[in-house]
């Protein structure tokens, strides 16, 4: 059995006191322990940003990569060794801004990753510029006349891209979030968990209080996440009521399931054969 404490890291945490990231960290530890995955058996890959610092704060194998590039890096790792359980910690800027193209194509691949997007609707680490998910009109030092672009809706877009696991969590409900993360890990395919994460330093619109008044758990209403149209409607709900939970889930073969040769063994455990190479050289 693994306990939550097993994931403790002695690295100094550099997040602001009160940051929404702490709830996500707690939920992750809880989920991993509940799933009985020991630290040495989990790989966490992240981009760059406040969110992307997460893997340092729990004990795990980790690759803290480039801004925006966690998904392709994780895809390569997963194809090389599809027995790995891989989580990805990303931010709204990391995943939908700099990394937007990889997001789209990782969904299309249905590569088996559980992607936690710490969605604070702002660029935290670089001090408060608008992110793709910032509310239209939000004023920042750069967007002094307010954000002019339409707010990016990760859930709607993921659905339109054909994602098989689309969920929203709230860092203020760590227990609920842990459950979603666990479902995401169990789901064989690309699992998106967009997490409402208040940034206490730069986002004074979407605060803990603001969310607490609005979020409600879909599961409590007996919602069954198997209807695309319903999910699309829910994904667009943003206002007095904001649904959290799994909006949509559909099992289908994951990318590495579809690569035939991986049925036999992982790529890294395959056998080198001099003879086969020699054959290839002579098959001219």
């Amino acid at each position, binding site marked *: 059995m693994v306990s939550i404490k097993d994931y403790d890291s002695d*690295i100094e945490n550099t997040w602001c006191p009160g940051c929404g990231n702490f709830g996500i960290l707690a939920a992750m530890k809880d989920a991993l322990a509940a799933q009985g995955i020991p*630290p*040495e*058996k*989990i*790989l966490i*890959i992240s981009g*760059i940003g406040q969110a992307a*610092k997460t893997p*340092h704060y729990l*004990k*795990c*194998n*980790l*690759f*803290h*990569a*480039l801004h925006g*590039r966690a*998904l*392709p*890096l*994780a*895809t*390569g*790792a*997963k*194809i*090389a*060794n599809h*027995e*790995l*359980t891989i989580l990805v910690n990303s931010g709204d800027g990391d995943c939908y801004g700099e990394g937007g*193209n*990889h997001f*789209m*194509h990782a969904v299309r691949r249905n590569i088996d990753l559980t992607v936690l997007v710490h969605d604070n609707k702002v660029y935290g680490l670089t001090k408060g510029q608008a992110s793709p998910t910032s509310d239209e009109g939000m004023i920042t030092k750069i967007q002094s006349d307010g954000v002019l672009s339409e707010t990016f809706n990760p859930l709607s877009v993921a659905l339109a891209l054909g994602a098989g696991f689309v969920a929203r969590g709230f860092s203020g409900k760590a227990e609920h979030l842990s459950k979603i993360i666990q479902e995401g890990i169990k789901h064989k395919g690309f699992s998106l968990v967009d997490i409402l994460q208040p940034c206490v330093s730069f986002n004074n619109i979407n605060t803990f209080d603001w969310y607490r008044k609005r979020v409600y758990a879909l599961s409590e209403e007996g919602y069954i996440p198997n209807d695309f149209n319903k999910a699309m409607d829910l994904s667009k709900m943003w206002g007095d009521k904001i649904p959290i939970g799994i909006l949509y889930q559909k099992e289908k073969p994951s990318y590495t399931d579809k*690569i035939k*040769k*991986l049925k036999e*063994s992982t*790529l*890294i455990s*395959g*056998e*080198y*054969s*001099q003879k*086969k*190479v*020699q*054959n*290839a*050289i*002579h098959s*001219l």
Partner: protein
Amino acid sequence: MSVDISVKIGGEAGQGIQTVGDILARVCLKCGLYLMAINDFESRIRGGHSFFQIRISDKPVNAPNHGINLLLALDKKSFDLHEKELVKGGISLMEGVDTPAKKNVIAIPFLELAKESGGKITSNIVAAGACLALLGAPFGVIREVITEGFASKGKDIVEKNLNAANAGYEAAGKISYKFAFKWKVSRPRGILIDGSRAIALGALAADCRFASFYPMSPATGIMAHLASAANEFPLVVEQAEDEISAVNMIIGASFAGARAMTATSGGGFCLMTEGLGLSGITETPIVIVNAQRPGPATGMATRTAQADLLFIINASQDEFPRFVFAPGSPAEAFETTSRAFHLSDKYQVPAIILVDQYLNDSLFIAEKALKAPGKVKRFIVSDNDLKKPAEYKRYALTNSGISPRAIPCNGRAIVMVSGNEHKEDGHSSESAQTRIEMVNKRNAKVVKMLFEINPPETYFPGSKILLAGWGSAKGAIREAVDMLRKDGIDAGCVNFNDLWPFPAAATEKAFLTCEKFYMVEQNSTVQLGRLIKEQTALSYSGAVLKYDGRPFYPVEIADGIKKYMR
């Protein structure tokens, strides 16, 4: 008898020039001849103008020849464009029914003959038959080549093509031709191979397990070869959404334990430079092939160049060790690719292979057999190799700068890797001291890396003047040296395959006794010349540069050097 004949087959894209060229090449091969062939084509799928130019000889040839002995013009444009390149006694072979006005032009009704024999579509085979007949090739070998070549398409197709070839052969059989020579069936001199295929094979021989790429000429061929072989191997070839993804995917795969590579051209390499740095700071081995073409930006997609050297050596912000290689032939490309994987793995640094459209798309004979090793040595540790796996530190400080590399989720050793500056354990650090240690650790590897670097290859090393170049220009430079020597000029040459870390001592030695040396490069600012100046006490005295997107002809180099002699 000394054979040195160039045949140019010109026509529109889609007219089957490649097939004609392929048949010619294989017939030559089976007759124990040497050959090399270049492919010239435009950035389009149909129409326009392209050509395949094959040089046939009884001695090794490693560069194209300027003058042509036989022009097979599959369209009028090809004739108009290339007629002037014919040497004295050379002839043009064209589609046509009437006898042409010019006496060095022969018209043969390829299409009509095709219709009568193998069907309309085989008119290029008719032409191939005619070409070979003119040159005096034995039909038996042509039959063999066609039978083998079309075997997979069924007996009927084979038959039709044999008929077509025969029709052409008969039609041209009686024409007397100055450059016809005696053919004999004989053992092939080696295998026929282009750079793309050689690189793919080199990767297989190095046990490459994962390749990710985004299509870009002239690099795509490498990946197409790998993809077509992939099913036989524990290898996945993944087409990424863009080059940024491609390079990050291979970093991820390598991190997880698979040898991994990508291939691209300049524009795609630009997009990979940040990832290159990630490989550098995280010490994750990767192999990148950069297949050069003229730039900047889109430049000329299907042409050749050698103008990315300084970019590649300095690419990505800040500094970190890397290997940079530029093979001079497909055989070298095979070797170099395998070595790149090995060295990248051993030193935990990125390795970059610089090739170009000319090398990738040209056929050469590799005389020495390409050999795959019995075993592939890896440089990965697991719990058993570690005293205290639980205390494993990915970036442990060592004298060599190389830290034992474990892979994730493979035991009790926890692997932590960061693209931020990091401590020995892999966690990010803000410390000045740590920063210095880590920069020094990474730089320390260069000492041993230099021992792995081969000195430049010399040819007539003691000569008064030396020509110097890198990568694919080698064949042309060596032949230019032969030409210069024939003209009484005491010339030799120095060709670089291994470019970084730069072999400064070996370079100084190579040029020690010459009076002057001249750079021969396919760029406009003498990039290797500048690098030599930066890295050694030497300065080049002049340069022969070509940057029109076409490969060097040896005579251009020889002429360029002679200008300096006056």
